[in-house]
């Protein structure tokens, strides 16, 4: 089981020691999004070496162990559902999907959303249980536990020490959920945002203004729970080779660099790609906005770039 944990001061999911539950007091959300559990910052794809018969390839052994993630917030669980679309599309991605299929998500109603959160503008809420297996909501000294999927219900059934929720418990949970909903104060208007973005795609002036203070550090993409771009590279040490993949970002010029051309040299083109990918291209390709309003890109940006300001200021053109 993986729970929110502070590793060198950075909040991320880490293996639970079976004892410490203090995270329930201080945890608001992880800095490293749970996607890292399924698409690690760096992972080995296969090993290769050359012998007399030629090259031999070998996949790293998968332990296939079942895992639980405890305390995932609705924004991050929804993000995984968004990532699934890409990793299942056309060709299945075996690395990501095998971890997804071996993992159950125990969600936690987010009772203390940040000022930068805006999940309620993206059809979700701090208590949205649509993409978890089990949903927990803190109601005073107790948790209301809801089995969402069949797998989740199966996990709850044999668990000892649980009591049937009373009407009063349900009422308290409803209060908590409503109060949480109203704590999300930041809002954006996503109506027809894909069409609006398409109509201002060539508006260089607008994108230059939006990108003016961006320093292309990539943090908003690397720590975004729905960003999935990756690089593939080889490493060869003493005839033992490894092909691995690692997170990449559209914020970096090299991301699209070809030997003699680069379609996105200017940073406004790269920032436009990031915004349009989430709010225009993903809706066209998969029918959903690839943003869950988790607010990390706002909280963690070193120059206070704010995607909600960008979305709200898209010029209305007909």
């Amino acid at each position, binding site marked *: 089981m993986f729970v929110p944990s502070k590793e060198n001061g950075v909040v991320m999911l880490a293996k639970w020691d079976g004892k410490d539950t203090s995270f329930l007091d201080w945890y608001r959300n992880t800095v490293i999004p749970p996607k890292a559990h399924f698409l690690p910052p760096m992972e080995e794809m296969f090993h290769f070496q050359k012998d007399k018969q030629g090259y031999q390839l070998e996949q790293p052994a998968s332990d296939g162990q079942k895992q639980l993630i405890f305390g995932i917030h609705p924004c991050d669980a929804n993000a995984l559902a968004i990532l699934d679309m890409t990793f299942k599309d056309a060709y299945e991605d075996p690395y990501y999907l095998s971890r997804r299929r071996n993992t159950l998500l125990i969600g936690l109603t987010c009772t203390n959303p940040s000022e930068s959160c805006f999940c309620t503008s993206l059809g979700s809420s701090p208590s949205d249980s649509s993409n978890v297996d089990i949903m927990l909501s803190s109601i005073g000294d107790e948790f209301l536990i809801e089995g969402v999927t069949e797998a989740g219900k199966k996990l709850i059934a044999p668990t000892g020490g649980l009591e049937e929720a009373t009407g009063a418990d349900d009422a308290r949970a409803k209060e908590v959920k409503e109060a949480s909903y109203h704590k999300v104060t930041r809002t954006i208007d996503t109506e027809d945002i894909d069409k609006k973005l398409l109509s201002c795609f060539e508006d260089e002036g607008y994108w230059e203004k939006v990108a003016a203070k961006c320093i292309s550090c990539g943090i908003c993409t690397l720590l975004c729970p729905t960003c999935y771009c990756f690089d593939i590279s080889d490493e060869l040490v003493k005839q033992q080779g490894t092909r691995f993949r690692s997170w990449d970002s559209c914020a970096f010029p090299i991301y699209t660099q*070809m030997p003699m051309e680069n379609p996105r040299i200017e940073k406004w083109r790269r920032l436009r790609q990031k915004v349009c990918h989430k709010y225009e291209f993903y809706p066209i390709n998969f029918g959903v906005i690839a943003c869950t309003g988790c607010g990390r890109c706002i909280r963690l940006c070193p120059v206070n770039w704010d995607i909600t300001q960008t979305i709200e200021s898209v010029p209305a053109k007909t």
Partner: protein
Amino acid sequence: MAVTDISHRRRFLAQGNVYLPHIAVIEKIIEETAGVRTFHFNFKDEKLREEFTFESGQFGEYSVFGVGEAPFCISSSPTRHDYLEFVVQRVGKVTNALHRLGVGAEIGFRGPYGNSFPLDRLQRQNLVFVGGGIGLAPLRSLIWNVIDNRDKYQNIDIIYGARSPADLCFWYDLDAWDKDKTINMITTVDRGDESWTGRVGLVPQILEQVAPSAQDTVAIVCGPPIMIRFTFPVLIKLGFTPEQMLTTLEKRMKCGIGKCGRCNIGNLYVCRDGPVFTYAQIKNFISSEY
């Protein structure tokens, strides 16, 4: 010559981990120009050799183990399959490593990926091929495919150019097409030399001079981005509609299967939705994204 036509084999889909390359062996290397080589290769696995097929326009991800992977189109035609071909210009890390390989060397191949030229749409049409430099590689697969089914197509114009006579790729094909009386072959160079007696001029200019009729015609364009950008307006001037203009695009790619993120033009991924596009599909984005 005994050639195997594999164009009627059932569509090939690799089983298992899509990221694991098949091992292939380089069988022949042709020096096209200084810095451009064609590689003939075959799969090491006999079963795979028998099952593999592809369509003109599709590409593969080629590995030099220890250096990396890069995408190249399959430049041979599925109607002539004793081996597969791809063409590499020496420009970066992987392409330099490929140029260091000799006959017998092993490479990795993943694919075939991407869509292909819509043969159903092209049949019974006049075809105008417009190619520049190494951009002839994907067109070449289609041209041989069309030649091997010649009665299904109408007039064929091929307008091909390179910077100089020494930069013309596939000279052996250019000769063959020039001799083929059913094809109008036009070769041009940006700058001639003392022995060059052919046309001189940029591909879009020559296209405008040749002025093929747009009636029942499809134009298929591939070359460096700058040539593609200047060719579309000429075709429009000649009366071609965006649906009558096809191109095949190249972008930096890693996965080849629509996941790593970087090769998009608008919402379309060159690897997954392309590499073959109609101008109608990409015209909203091409001016500023390609």
